[in-house]
């Protein structure tokens, strides 16, 4: 029982990441409002950030800024990748939001169901 509990605690970050990931996916798939869809997409992206960063952490380690006082550092490599991903994420979000504004100007709604109704 205690080994099960310690396994659960040491994998808790993965479970929460998976929860965030599938709730982002759920929002994207099931909600018709486009702003909400983009929020779901952002949720999915940020869950991937934690998925990358959390294995880089070493217990009792410190941030990867070299100094004589410390010898154990967390891995700097995922941090670099995710810095790039955050900036790309905000770029895609801005593009998506401007698409939403254009759709609202053109059709007067940002609800997916109404857009499909108009088409028929």
């Amino acid at each position, binding site marked *: 029982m205690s080994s099960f509990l310690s396994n659960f605690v040491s994998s808790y970050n993965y479970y929460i990441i998976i929860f965030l990931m599938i709730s982002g996916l759920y929002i994207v798939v099931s909600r018709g409002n486009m702003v909400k869809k983009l929020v779901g997409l952002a949720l999915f992206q940020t869950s991937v950030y934690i998925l990358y*960063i959390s*294995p880089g952490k070493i217990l009792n380690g410190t941030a990867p800024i070299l100094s004589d006082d410390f010898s154990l550092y967390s891995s700097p490599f995922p941090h670099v990748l995710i810095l*790039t991903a955050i900036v790309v994420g905000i770029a895609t979000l801005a593009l998506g939001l401007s698409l939403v504004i254009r759709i609202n100007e053109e059709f007067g709604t940002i609800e997916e169901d109404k857009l499909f109704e108009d088409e028929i």
Partner: protein
Amino acid sequence: MIILTLMAITTLGIIKLRNLFSVVVLSSIYSFLMATLLLIFDAVDVALTEAAVGAGVSTVLMLTVIYYTKTTEEEPKHSSIIPIMVCLAIGGLLIYGTYGLPPFGASDTPLHNHVSAQYLQRSIPETGVPNVVTSVLASYRGFDTLGEVIVVFTAAIGVISLLKKDNS
């Protein structure tokens, strides 16, 4: 662990609420929790970026959009059983996938023993920068950062051409 749980609760709020203003504010709270979590995971540079970009800029952008459009979301017409089933199936597969991943905080994983250790050893002699994230970002993987600038530039061109008012 507490912050991870708080993030999950915030996500439930985002799913449940139909007022888009509250959704945007909750996603801002989510981003601040995320920045705190990254600080705990020793990713200080990423935490700064997330607090500025995720909680600041993206919130402002979304608030601008809901100023131009409507602030309430309508009830979805389709039933949400199929999306729930698909999401649960994918979640089950992902949880099965975690059995191969190392436990949290371990230091004997491949991630820490190959390229990361090299970066930590070589940063001072080869680039002279004590912050290893900076030296990797700007020196070892400089072309990656150049590609990132191109992506942002392309996105900016897209936004400008979408929002430009037609004079004709």
